[in-house]
């Protein structure tokens, strides 16, 4: 049997899919593969591709997708069918606490101690009316009235600062990169706005609060990646 015929039948041979005219034909391929290093090597390559294809890494979609899905579903579900409570009972915080086993290593305890000291020191500064490392940006945002998370003003300020930085870099990007970045940022901002609208209607919705945080984190990562583009 010639190389060309073997190569053309190789995928069928690997998959056990060939409709062989006879058992002899299959044997001929096997014999050829035993005798021909090139075809044998090709067979190994295709086998590796086939094997690797079943173990490809999974990709994670942007967080904003769930917000869009949830908003669509909420909008189209008749009010009468909307569940005001979930079917499966929630664990209470005490049940969750009891279910956990806490073990701390020495460095973790040292870290926790340092954090406690930092909290106490910050508290003392706060009570005495002094602000360590006064940051004008932060001060100017403490008055944001519409914050839906306790630290939202700071998060927003940080993101705005980064957006300003990225805007400077954008001049050096090609149009495709600029367009992709703008589209992505707009999508996140739209999802953020939808999430904030839902939170304004129900400020205690913990699920939306967490969602809001994740979206801010997604925006932060986008900006961080964009900032790296200057390097």
């Amino acid at each position: 049997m010639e190389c060309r015929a073997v190569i053309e039948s190789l995928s069928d041979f690997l998959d056990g899919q060939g409709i062989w005219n006879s058992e002899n034909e299959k044997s001929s391929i096997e014999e050829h593969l035993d005798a021909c290093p090139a075809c044998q090597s090709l067979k190994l390559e295709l086998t590796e591709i086939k094997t690797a294809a079943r173990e490809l890494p999974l990709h994670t979609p942007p967080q904003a997708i769930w917000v869009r899905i949830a908003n669509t579903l909420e909008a189209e579900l008749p009010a009468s069918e909307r569940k005001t409570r979930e079917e499966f009972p929630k664990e209470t915080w005490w049940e969750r606490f009891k279910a956990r086993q806490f073990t701390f290593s020495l460095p973790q305890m040292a870290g926790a101690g340092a954090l406690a000291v930092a909290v106490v020191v910050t508290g003392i500064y706060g009570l005495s009316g002094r602000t360590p490392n006064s940051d004008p940006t932060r001060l100017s945002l403490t008055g944001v009235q519409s914050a839906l998370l306790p630290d939202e003003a700071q998060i927003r300020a940080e993101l705005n600062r980064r957006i300003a930085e990225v805007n400077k870099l954008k001049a050096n990007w090609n149009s495709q990169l600029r367009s992709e970045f703008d589209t992505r940022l707009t999508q996140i901002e739209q999802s953020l706005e939808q999430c904030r609208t839902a939170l304004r209607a129900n400020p205690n919705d913990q699920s939306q609060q967490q969602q809001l945080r994740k979206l801010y984190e997604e925006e932060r990562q986008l900006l961080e990646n964009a900032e790296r583009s200057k390097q």
Partner: protein
Amino acid sequence: MTANGIYNAKGDFDLAQASSRGDIKAFETLYERHNRRVYSLCLRMLANATEAEDLTQEVFIQLFRKIGSFRGESAFTTWLHRMTVNHVLMHFRKRGVKYEKTTEEGEIGELQDIIQSVVERPRHVDRLSLDKAIRELPRGYRTVFVLHDVEGFEHEEIAKMLGVSVGTSKSQLHKARMKLRDLLNKKA
């Protein structure tokens, strides 16, 4: 958004049942469990992140609408994957893109070239490189390769879904593998 432990402990069938009665939290848990597989499948078939995001969103909205029809006769994953594939193929049809039997762009190379390139090739197929190379395949090859080698569909199923013969599906798969081999060797 994190679903609590009780929801996470539930099986897909229970969550699907609760979702069909309007429990968004149950559906969110299903989303958290399966979104990566659905998105990855869309991304591989479409080779375009924006379109993959849009279709992932559409698939889950469609899933919510149809979830009451899931009877648990097959695995939920199988059911969802079939729905995803059908949705992507429908998307291709809507765009007016007919299934293409790629013959020129991805023609298998000359025998001498194949044999030559076998010499001293790297022995290991890197999964990330393969993932990238799949995106570079012509769409006809990519569709069959993703459905057969990545998702594990049989040629008979693929042929039915794409409206082609089993022979065409097999031939496209072989050409796709050979093309991938070329792409991987070029990058190595």
